[in-house]
């Protein structure tokens, strides 16, 4: 048992090694997009923004655009590995720096939305599973269907229409109030107020997904013999539900939350656009309007890399949660 920590570490290292080719695959997909895009690859790497000729020359040399394809691929991988994702002339910033700055805001939004979705979704799923066929169960099924079917960007617009336009309770745009100069706690609260609507819009679909999954998983767990055994020991129902039911039901839920991370990122791109939230999604939208392709490519690369890392973390979390996982 003393070796438990060690085996977990070895397992983590193994999974990390498996993630490496995946990252390489993401880079290759990016490269293929550049290589196959119609027109001059310089234009693809540069976007439709005027750039100084020296920079164009440097790009040609750095990415070996005169060289045969395999050399270009090698050079591209090498550049990406060094963190060189090109330069955005629209923002006058290196792409890597630009994307990282925006990712912070996106993560704030996503973390809030996922927390909200997990809390509400698990709660709803457990409540529905406790009384299958009840009104609450039917309501949770309805919420799930709505969540699967309503586009999150439209839900975002509806929330703006209701809470910002009609009721005027919450701000509809941005991450902080432009007219006020808040500091300290007031500034944090201001960001919090701006966060509510986008987080709600982004969380709905995942809450629906988590609720549906939790319900099914919980029904399965609560029909197991060890639940009967726990009740036979006189444990309070709340403890039976959480320690024995949910603790087992949570395993598939955690996996699905993790593997849907890529979709949450995509959803946040759309929701950010509605709310003018200065994250990666908004950057993506602006980059498309400005035909700022280096930024588009950088976003695809970094977002995919983030997903790889998150999936890795989820696998590790699963290994910690489920003692039966063999490393």
């Amino acid at each position, binding site marked *: 048992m003393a070796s438990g920590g060690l085996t977990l570490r070895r397992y983590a290292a193994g999974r990390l090694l498996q993630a490496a*080719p*995946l990252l390489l*695959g*993401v880079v290759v*997909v990016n490269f293929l*997009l550049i290589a196959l*895009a*119609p027109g001059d690859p310089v234009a*693809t790497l540069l976007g439709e923004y005027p750039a100084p000729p020296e920079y164009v020359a440097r790009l040609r040399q750095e990415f070996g655009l005169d060289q045969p394809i395999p050399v270009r691929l090698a050079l591209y991988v090498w550049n990406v590995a060094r963190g060189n994702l090109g330069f955005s002339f629209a923002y006058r910033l290196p792409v890597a720096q630009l994307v990282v700055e925006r990712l912070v805001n996106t993560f704030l939004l996503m973390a809030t939305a996922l927390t909200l979705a997990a809390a509400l979704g698990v709660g709803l799923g457990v409540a529905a599973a406790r009384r299958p*066929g009840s009104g609450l169960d039917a309501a949770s099924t309805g919420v799930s*269907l*709505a969540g*699967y*079917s*309503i*586009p999150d*960007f*439209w839900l975002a*617009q*509806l929330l*703006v*229409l209701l809470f910002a*336009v009609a009721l005027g309770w919450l701000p*509809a745009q941005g991450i902080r109030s432009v007219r006020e100069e808040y500091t300290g706690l007031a500034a944090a609260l201001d960001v919090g107020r701006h966060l509510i609507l986008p987080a709600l819009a982004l969380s709905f679909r995942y809450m629906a997904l988590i609720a549906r999954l939790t319900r099914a998983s919980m029904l399965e767990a609560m029909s197991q013999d060890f639940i009967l055994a726990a009740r036979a020991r006189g444990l309070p129902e709340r403890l039976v539900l959480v320690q024995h039911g949910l603790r087992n039901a949570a395993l598939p839920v955690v996996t699905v939350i993790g*593997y849907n991370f*890529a*979709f949450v*990122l*995509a*959803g946040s*791109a*759309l929701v950010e*656009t*509605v709310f003018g939230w200065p994250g990666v999604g908004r950057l*993506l*939208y602006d980059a*498309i*309007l400005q*035909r700022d*392709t280096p930024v*588009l*490519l950088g*976003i*695809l690369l970094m*977002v*995919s890399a983030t*997903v*790889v890392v998150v*999936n890795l973390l989820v696998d590790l979390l699963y290994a910690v949660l489920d003692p039966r996982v063999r490393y």
Partner: protein
Amino acid sequence: MAAAVGPGRGGSEFWRRFRASRPGVAGLGLVILLAATALAAPLVAPHDPHATSLVTLAAPGAPGHPLGTDNLGRDIASGVLWGSRASLVVGVCAAATAIFLGVVIGAVAGFYGGWVDALLSRVTELFQVIPRFVLALLVVALFGGGLGKLILVIGVLSWPQAARVVRGQFLALRGAAYVDAARVLGLRDTRIIFSEILPNVLAPVVVIASLDVAGAILLEASLGFFGLGDPNLISWGLMLNNAQAYLRQAWWMSVFPGLAISLAVLGFNLLGDGLNDAANPRLDA
């Protein structure tokens, strides 16, 4: 549609169970409504959806404009009706592309195993980590987005789910007695794959096809919302993109196209649930 593809053996039994599924029947109803709207749009739409007029930002109920008009005076009701065409065409064609690719790739990987299978698994993993929407966005931005390209992009990006399911079924079935029998009879591999095994995996494929249509409609709308897509098409997503700038003045520019997308997606999702109920009968109600 469901009846025509009623999987392999016992198609009528499949259809009977489908009819017993309430979500399935509701979904089929919505899908038929969507198809009827798409067919009848030219007949029932009060205006040319492209036609601008001086009556801009008219509220719903304005004379001749039951759902109001947009910032250029275009009729919202006509836009919503005509928009069903783009959604349905892109949704169904993209899903068909995805299913075709998924079935072929999944069947080959599941039937032969080995390196083909290993390669497929890696590619599927890759598609799992690259956000589909962002990649589609990039491809359309780089390569342009006519209707055909849109269908191709969405279809190509959506095949892995069908491939995974078909692969799993083929792995399970390739050792089955009747497959061995077909081998002994000297049937060609393609014949075994398509005539012997495939009919038995149709049920889950039909379910995924329906869910793929829902996903494709949603993706097309998302791309439209980002201002990408075929500018000559009337698309609900593009209407919502247009509505974004006028949220404070004209709620109807957002509410009606959004409702249309939701109902279309809901229809195919429900249909998928119903087909799933019919394909995997459960004992508990």
